[in-house]
């Protein structure tokens, strides 16, 4: 994350209510994780104690303090997907990627996450890779879908 970009994000939100959350959200969206030195810069620029920045950054689940792989794989484990076999789907994704939810593989190819619910229950169970939905998935289709993401 280059510092001009960071400054721009900070200036856009400075002084508005909830500025810290807005800034962290924007950085997370663009950079996919929150490096510690960036958090320090944000704390300084917004004149907020670093401890408070960390508190917010660790509490809200969207924020990641570790780098993500090139492809973010999200298996929906919402109740509707759960009833339609999300567990088996998750097993298949774990087998195909060799990682568990929350982990990134050694080659930085995939980061795996679970979560609920993205509101597209009618087309579950599904996996979402880099924001693209793969609807009505079965464990057998996992390999083919993930092949597309290198």
């Amino acid at each position, binding site marked *: 994350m280059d510092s001009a970009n960071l400054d721009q994000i900070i200036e856009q939100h400075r002084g*508005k*209510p*909830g*500025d*810290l*959350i*807005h800034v*962290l*959200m924007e950085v*997370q*969206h663009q950079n996919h994780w929150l490096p510690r030195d960036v958090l320090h810069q944000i704390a300084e620029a917004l004149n907020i104690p670093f401890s408070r920045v960390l*508190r*917010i950054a660790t*509490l*809200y*689940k*969207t*924020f990641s303090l570790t780098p993500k792989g090139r492809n973010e794989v999200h298996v929906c484990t*919402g*109740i*509707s997907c*759960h*009833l*339609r076999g999300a567990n088996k789907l998750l097993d298949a994704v774990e087998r195909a990627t060799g990682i568990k939810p929350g982990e990134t593989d050694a080659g930085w190819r995939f980061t795996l996450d679970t*979560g*609920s*619910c*993205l*509101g*597209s*229950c*009618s*087309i*579950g169970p*599904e996996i979402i890779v880099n*924001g693209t*939905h793969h*609807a009505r998935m079965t464990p057998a289709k996992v390999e083919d879908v993930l092949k597309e993401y290198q």
Partner: protein
Amino acid sequence: MTRLNSAAELEQLRAGILSSRDPAKPCIAVCAGAACHGLDSVRVAQAFQAEVAKLGPGAGLEVRVTGCHGYCEKGPNVVVDPEGICYFEVKPEDVPEIIACTLKKEVVERLVYAHPDTGERAVHIGEVPFYKHQMRLLIGDNTRIDPMRIDDYLALGGYGALAKALFQMTPGQVLDEVKKANLRGRGGGGFPAGLKWETAKNAPGKDKYVIVNAHEGEPGAFMDRALFTGNPHKVLEGLIIGAYAIGSHRGFIYTRHDSPQLICHIEQALAQAEEYGLLGENILGSGFDFRVEVHYDVGIFVSGESSALMRSIEGNPPEPRPKYIRTSVAGIWDRPSNLNNVETWANVPQIISRGADWYRGIGTEGSKGTKLVSLSGNVVNSGVVEVPMGTPLRTIVYDIGGGIPGGKAAKAVHFGGPMGGSIPANLIDAPLDFDELAKLGAPIGAGGLLVMDEDTDMVDVARYFLEFLTNESCGKCVPCREGMRQTLKVLTNITKGKGREGDIARLEDLNDVTGAACLCALGRTASDPLKSMLRYFKVEYETQIARGSEGRSGNAAGSAAT
């Protein structure tokens, strides 16, 4: 866009929009709701746009990309107006044929609804079983609105209720109308919105806030997103009217960060409303000022709780606080803050324009109006459903939902997600009513209705919900943080065949403590699904526990194999 300075100018603009449109000209509405989007409706919409572009300016038809139509199971959905011809599971390859037939006033028979058993066809939206049992007062406009164009909303009479409120009614009269309509909060509690408004209105202090809760974190609930993404101005109009009644000049929309389409539509709606002078300073020349800002949930369920949500808007961690001081008296920055859910706000314009008496004519004694329901789980037709309050659940699950897939029997229906409850299939004639369903132990909650078939393991469902809430607890209060963990442990053991005698008593004891001692609704109602299970499905729990005990004694007798 010109700024509107009076109600008359708004009506002039509306007349202009209507006169520029030919109501007989075919308009093809392509759904871009969450489910259709996931089924690649973008490519369908692009194909339509490309074909129409090829035909040139005299194409004789229009394409409109819209919000959710409702019948998510059969997406991508396409509706051709003015006739309301419904096409399902449309692929980009089908597009030229649809356009050709539409221009010839013909129907593409192979893409219309066919009943899975009888093969009977249904062409128009009013004939398709999924739609015909509904009363789509809120979501029905979705097929006629491009959410990015305020003119589409104005063409349907949009912001007429706001003009009526501002110029023909006092804030007190608006409040009285909403109270008289007995509009109850759609977010979960079912608390009368009018009373909440009144508390905020009468609370001391000059600065008051109104908030749209569009967090919708409940797993299996997707109706608010469908409504807000598809028709953002309806919610916004309700919010402005509410602000006028309460005397608030600053509003907040709190929504999910992970729905890019929703965010885009909200921002566009705010910008367009402001350009027209429907938002901002001196709205429609009435002297009333009101501004709205957007804030985001960044991934934690408890921030949908009203007091936690307000902490989050302030920029703090979303920890709920005790409710002996109501947020309508001391909310954001300790100022009176009136929070309602998306669907509640969306009901306001029609109450003002058509009157409380009309509204009271729909629904039951205690629950008025219609209710949006997200129908999902083991059901043939999942999607967004809107029915009058009082509709039997059987109508929703069987007539609209088409019953259970695979010829299986229903076992239970579950309302209200992780803080709701399940009732057995033999109670399926119960009406959709705040009070009736709460009595049965399955409060409507936000309106997520989950159908479970005969194969569903009810211990696992309770375990699933508790696992979800355990992960989402903010950890501020001990009964919630620790109580749920212990309950989850017991349930997990039962599902793994390690249940013990006395587990049910232990679960009931834990339920009592968390139900009484937790700070906020998350902890207090976390045990509700389990309570409903122990009320209706206790035998299943006992059987699984007994299996566990037997398994253990069997192991012990055989060898020390553990």
